[in-house]
């Protein structure tokens, strides 16, 4: 809840996402975003199992980006993690978002993926704001709006005793 007064550009604004259309739309976006990643992950698993060798090769080629030498180092040294991790984490991130469980944690993983895609694909022919960046913003939106609380399992998980006793767990849920 934010209540701002004294700013003529804002007026009295209270963001409470209890409006039926807001909840509907956030839940819909969450499921579609989850399906996007689930499809990407599960089809890699079907076709190549947990050995997505293109992942490490892709990162080895990510030189000269804003991330410096990190992706190339990862591609050279973390192939053991990247090759099973890309299909596995894409699938799990997708499932979590579809179900609305551990939404913020899963969406954080999506942010990592989309950051690498946005910078690595470097499809900037029509400007920096491209579809990769829009995907990155979608995952960030899931985190900001705690999208799992709307028609998602996090609405239930957040009422569990363990979460009530450790409210900071909500930063991973929502």
């Amino acid at each position, binding site marked *: 809840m934010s209540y701002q007064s004294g700013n003529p550009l804002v007026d009295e*604004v209270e963001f409470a996402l209890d*409006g*039926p*259309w*807001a909840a*509907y739309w956030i839940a819909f976006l969450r499921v579609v975003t989850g399906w996007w990643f689930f499809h990407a992950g599960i089809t890699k698993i079907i076709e190549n199992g947990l050995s997505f060798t293109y992942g490490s090769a892709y990162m080895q080629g990510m030189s000269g980006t804003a991330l410096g030498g990190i992706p190339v180092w990862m591609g050279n040294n973390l192939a053991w993690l990247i090759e099973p991790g890309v299909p596995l984490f894409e699938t799990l991130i997708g499932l979590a978002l579809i179900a609305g469980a551990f939404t913020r944690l899963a969406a954080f993983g999506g942010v990592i993926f989309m950051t690498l895609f946005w910078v690595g694909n470097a499809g900037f022919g029509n400007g920096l704001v491209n579809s990769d960046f829009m995907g990155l913003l979608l995952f960030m939106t899931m985190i900001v709006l705690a999208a799992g609380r709307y028609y998602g399992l996090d609405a239930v998980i957040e009422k569990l005793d363990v979460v009530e006793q450790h409210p900071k767990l909500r930063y991973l849920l929502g």
Partner: protein
Amino acid sequence: MTDIIDKAAMALSAGLMLLGTVGLGIVEILAGAPYSPVPITNEAGDVVATPLISPQIRTGIVLAGIAVLGLYAAYKIVTPLAEDAKAGHETVAD
């Protein structure tokens, strides 16, 4: 009455959009390669496998869901505001 139309618009639009993307996407995966709605070609460029459901059908279903939202928007524009309606400060997008 308005509440019923709201809920119907939500259910129908989300149902159609999710059917076109997720629902038929699951069917496409279960049907085997290609897992995305694009044909598979060999090195000679010949099509060796086609999607079970054409992308025209799937995108058409999604667009129908979007059209439902468009119709709902048109409905809201042409119907008078409720007497107790006011500028919404307490909720967004209502």
